[in-house]
């Protein structure tokens, strides 16, 4: 099992969009995937037409069994229409609602999230955490469990602040993780989102990102209006517009993630 966290201490940069599509993409390719909505706003929960409820809260604070909190996403919601029936993988969501906000005040130690998800290490291939922008003790607990991090960022100068913040937070944890014999958290990618390739500002900022983070920077995800439609349809772009260029862009994200997960260190 690999635990991957989508992170940027800024809202509206595409965390939820990437979390839903990377998890759906891997599920379509046959993996068993859990998407944990760790944001009190519950955007990842409603992204698949599920209703908001305190699943994550119950799991962490009240030690609820996984059976009680996991919600299966019907294949029709995330898979390519003609192939929905032959999905081998599975996509399950741990839903969220406003109660997620009080998890931080109720967890006893930084290993709570790790301990819970460790239970499923043999049953599940990937766990994605879609996080909220405001850092809290819950973030620490999620960092503790995380194997790899993906930072989506817009290509506007001001969005880099959030990215820099997140990266320093990540470094803070590395001595503690070493003490507990956990591997260092791997940065799987810095993903430029909502990219406008025609504007000089975006081109400039992409170059600056690449200068700073080198090959960690993924191919930018262009801005497209269809993404808003995808969100309001409560599906993935794979399911809604399978042949579109945007679906292709999304598949390319999944490819880049797989390349980085399976590459030799």
């Amino acid at each position, binding site marked *: 099992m690999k635990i991957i966290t989508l992170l940027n201490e800024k809202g509206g940069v595409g965390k939820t969009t990437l979390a839903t599509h990377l998890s759906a993409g891997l599920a379509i390719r046959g993996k*068993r995937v859990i998407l944990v909505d760790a944001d009190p706003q519950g955007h990842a929960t409603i992204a698949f*037409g*599920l*209703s908001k*409820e305190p699943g994550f809260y119950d799991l962490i604070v009240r*030690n609820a*069994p*996984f*059976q*009680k909190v*996991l*919600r*299966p*996403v*019907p*294949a*029709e*919601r995330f898979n390519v229409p003609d192939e929905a029936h032959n*999905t081998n993988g*599975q996509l*399950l969501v741990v*839903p969220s609602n406003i109660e997620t906000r009080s998890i931080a005040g109720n967890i006893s*130690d930084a*290993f709570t999230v790790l301990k*819970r998800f460790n*239970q*499923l290490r*043999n*049953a599940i291939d990937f766990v994605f955490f879609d996080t909220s922008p405001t850092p809290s003790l819950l973030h620490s607990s999620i960092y503790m469990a995380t194997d790899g991090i993906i930072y989506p960022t817009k290509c506007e100068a001001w969005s880099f602040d959030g990215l820099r913040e997140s990266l320093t937070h990540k470094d803070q944890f590395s001595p503690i993780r070493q*003490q*507990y014999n956990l591997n260092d958290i791997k940065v799987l990618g810095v993903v430029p989102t909502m990219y406008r390739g025609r504007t000089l500002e975006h081109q400039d900022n992409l170059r600056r990102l690449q200068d700073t983070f080198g090959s960690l920077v993924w191919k930018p995800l262009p801005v497209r209006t269809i993404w808003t*439609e995808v969100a309001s*349809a*409560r*599906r993935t772009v794979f399911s*809604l*517009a399978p042949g579109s260029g945007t679906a292709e862009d999304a598949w390319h994200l999944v490819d880049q993630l797989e390349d980085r997960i399976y590459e030799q260190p």
Partner: protein
Amino acid sequence: MSSRERRRKIQTEDNLLSANPNTLDPKTADAIGFGLGDLALEIAAADNDFQAIEAVSIQEIHPNSIQPRYSIPHDLTDIFALHPGNIVDIFERWIIEVQLETGQKDFDILPYLQGQATSRGARAESDAPDQSAADQPLFGKETALMKIVDLAASIRRDGLSNPISLVRHADHYEIETGERRWLAYHILYWKFGDGDRRSDGSVVNWSRIPARVVNQVDVWRQASENNARDNLNAISRARQLSLLLMDLHGWDNFVKIDACENEQAFYAQVADGAAWRIPRGQGERLLNAMGLSDAGQLRQYRALLRLPADLWRRGDDENLTEGELRKMKAALDNVTRVTIQKSKSKKDAVARLAADATQWRNKLRKEINSLDNNNKPKIRRLIEAEIRQLMRLIADIDESHT
């Protein structure tokens, strides 16, 4: 397709998807065809394994008598029953024995627990059966003690990262896994009590240990925990193999450990490989649980169950390897064959044994007397224990005499 067309299409499809997946747990979802299949069952199994963590009083916890690893040297558990009320006595006695064994009269565990001294690290760590204690046979008790002291020091420094697992009985808990962590908590409670302030400012109560309460002792879970945490010595592995075999054949076939003459006799119930074969199709599981790679090794560990009692104990206390024990057994077989023929009088041997015991006791008495007077009650307890042991020894001698 235009944006508007697409939106209309979505609405109709949404109606088709009227089953609200939100109200379904994976099992129900599976039943109506979301295709979770095995996954739902695996998640249910993981949930069953999970139990909330509680803080349980270390005094309410009793060791499991069939835990394959013996953390405390046999001659200490001969004197003191492994009962929560005796643990401090055991450690006091153990420390004194280390003082005698190593000749360091001022040996104390406190500096190690406080992080002021580090244990003779590599030595304490090296309990891998291959690096046997043979290169330092004189320090067996020290090595075994320092392993628990090091564990206690690391728990005090970093916290307990893995809760122990317990089975609840009417008036106590029984350890499934984590006997050494429980012993470490006893040391920490003895030395620091409750309200201990750690270097990071946090306050800990050592009288209670984080534990997961499970329904019953599962020897397979015990085995996987033992293999993951620490290398077991050869004797412990033989015990573990025995437990797994008993589990495979059904516990009703075997006498309980309390009814056996000694602990070895309990495990030796499956020593006969022809009578207690590995059930068909279970070989792989058994090898995995034991962390072994071929059936020949299983046979070798099973053969250890028939070691002479003294070799069994020595192998356990000194962490001898399976290979070493096999050779010693072969050598011993030769020697006994010879001595049985030659021995004129059994009486001589018994007399020598008694003389040895007296000499040993006198030496210990002298050492106890040289301890400072502040330790009076401790000394009295030691002497009482000493006398009890001596009486037992004499009883043994009397018995073998007749």
